């Protein structure tokens, strides 16, 4: 088990390197001079060259990358051009908010999705299946940012029950486990949960159908188990895959939170990313993307390790 985890972690290193290269190159495919944002428009050639040397932009690309990587490995992703604060600190702060939002959304999506998926799979072909599958289909097809706007229109604009945007205790950015904090979470979390709900429901539906088609289910009936007892076996068989899909969805939501966080002005990484794009804050942009992608990579590995730990079918050696 530990050996497997170790091996899986080793495998991730080249991918992580690749990700860092892509993130690094992002800066260089960006049109225009990366210094344009900080330099005054009338900067002298001398000043430009000075700045270039200061940022290491006069060195070969490979050296630039290695220096950048070395700093990144020490947690130094440079300073935000917009705020002047260290990128790493800004991201970590926002990361907590994003994580809370994505975590809650995943939980909602997983609970609802599993329920719908199991119902649809167990009653395949019946009206229950058709209803559950239709809901799942709507879930995977809905433009969630639009759904967010619709929910805001209904619950904030029309009913005035919940705040339309912002986050933190009364919008202050603090965190507490009370209504003043949670009421900001309700709409974005619900909106965000819709897609994972649909995906998980569809996955579990086909998973359940797959398990039910296996010979051992008939063997379970042949030894006298009642449907409820057979259901336990089905759940236990489907669980490893279902849980890994949930883990991946959490990773997706975190990485893809930009749309929802923009709609609700939720102070997370997505919001940060959006601001970085429009202020052309390239270090911030690069750093956020790097951290989110690496988080997704690690999430993938964790999912694999957890799955192999709970699924006896996977050879553990």
């Amino acid at each position, binding site marked *: 088990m530990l050996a497997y985890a170790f*091996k899986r972690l080793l495998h991730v290193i080249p991918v992580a390197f690749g990700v860092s290269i892509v993130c690094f190159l992002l800066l260089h495919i960006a049109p225009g001079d990366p210094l344009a944002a900080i330099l005054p428009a009338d900067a002298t050639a001398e000043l430009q060259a000075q700045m270039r040397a200061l940022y290491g932009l006069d060195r070969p690309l490979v050296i630039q990358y290695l220096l950048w990587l070395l700093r990144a490995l020490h947690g130094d992703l440079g300073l935000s051009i917009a705020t002047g604060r260290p990128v790493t600190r800004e991201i970590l702060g926002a990361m907590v908010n994003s994580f809370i939002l994505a975590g809650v959304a995943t939980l909602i999506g997983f609970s609802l999705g599993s329920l719908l998926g199991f119902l649809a799979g167990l009653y395949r072909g019946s009206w229950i299946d058709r209803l559950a599958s239709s809901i799942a289909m709507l879930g995977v097809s809905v433009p969630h940012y639009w759904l967010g706007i619709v929910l805001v229109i209904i619950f904030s604009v029309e009913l005035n029950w919940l705040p339309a945007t912002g986050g933190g205790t009364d919008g202050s950015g603090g965190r507490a486990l009370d209504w003043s904090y949670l009421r900001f979470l309700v709409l974005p979390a619900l909106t965000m949960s819709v897609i994972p709900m649909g995906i998980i429901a569809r996955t579990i539906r086909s998973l359940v159908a797959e398990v039910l088609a296996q010979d051992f289910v008939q063997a379970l009936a042949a030894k006298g188990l009642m449907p409820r007892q057979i259901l336990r076996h089905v759940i236990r068989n489907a669980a490893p895959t279902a849980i890994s899909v949930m883990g991946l969805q959490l990773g997706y939501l975190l990485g893809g939170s930009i749309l929802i966080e923009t709609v609700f002005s939720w102070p997370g990484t997505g919001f940060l990313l959006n601001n970085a794009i429009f202020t052309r804050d390239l270090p911030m942009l690069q750093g956020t993307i790097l951290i989110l992608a690496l988080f997704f990579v690690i999430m993938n590995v964790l999912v694999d390790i957890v799955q192999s730990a709970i699924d006896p079918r996977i050879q553990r*050696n």
Partner: protein
Amino acid sequence: MSLDLGGPAQPLLTVQGLVKHFPVKGSGLMRRRVVRAVDGIDFKVKKGETLGVVGESGCGKSTTARLIMKLLDPDSGTVLFDGQKLGHELELSAYRRQVQMVFQDSYASLNPRLTIEESIAFAPRIHGVTARAATERAHALLNRVGLDPGRFAGRYPHELSGGQRQRVNIARALALEPRLVILDEAVSALDKSVEAQVLNLLLDLKDEFGLTYIFISHDLNVVRFLCDRVMVMYLGKAAEIGDTEAIYERPGHPYSKALLASMPKANPAERMDEPPLAGDPPNPIDPPSGCRFHPRCALAEPVCSQSEPPLLQLGGDHEAACLANMSGSGHSLAPSRAP
């Protein structure tokens, strides 16, 4: 059309020291474990004969077939076809025209998107036969294997029964006019009455086209009926090889003996009381030391776990790898050293 090169005395196929190990997926970081699928086998196939290869799962029968077909690259060992060394004197494409294979799974071995005639015509088309001639040949072959081309040529594999599909696979294998056909459990998945029909067909085709067969099977009755000589395999090695009658009448290896005794007799008066062999065939990963059969062998003695028996001549072509037959091996049953 390739000519007979070495004359009738020259073996059609000579296999020497064939070895194939597969790495075990997900094995430890430090120690790479391997499946010793085929672990050093030598044998010859004479022109016009049928060589049977028998053994239980994991003995390396199918790997041997794929190695001969060059579908797998051996770790070591050579294959001579009609005296020509494969890869040196004989090019792979020329070799493949002369050696063909029929697989066990009649469905998986036909492309589901091709009609029957397209499947059969594929190989001739590759070798430069015109589309029209290839189709004509496909129809003729279908006819020959007992399927009416008018009814079957335009159909797809899933519309045929298992027996019909296996006939198609045989026709496909014959489309290049090969000299050697490897039948890898080719009739094992068929019902008994269908199996009998297909076996007769194989015999007819062999006579008609002067074919040589390697017949891989776990069914000893079928092998006895069909084969001139037999090789018994156990865990990647040849345990015994020789004329069919010699092996079936006087098996020289305790494993062959047990295998033969394990076939249920279709006579309620001849019921067995004791299983001839205990335990399951072991895993070809980390096979036992010495003679690989010793943990299950009734004749096993301490020496059997220490030294590995070579194939030893028992008379004529008949060879077996057992220390009990080998004078001076240290086994108590071994004949005293010849003067």
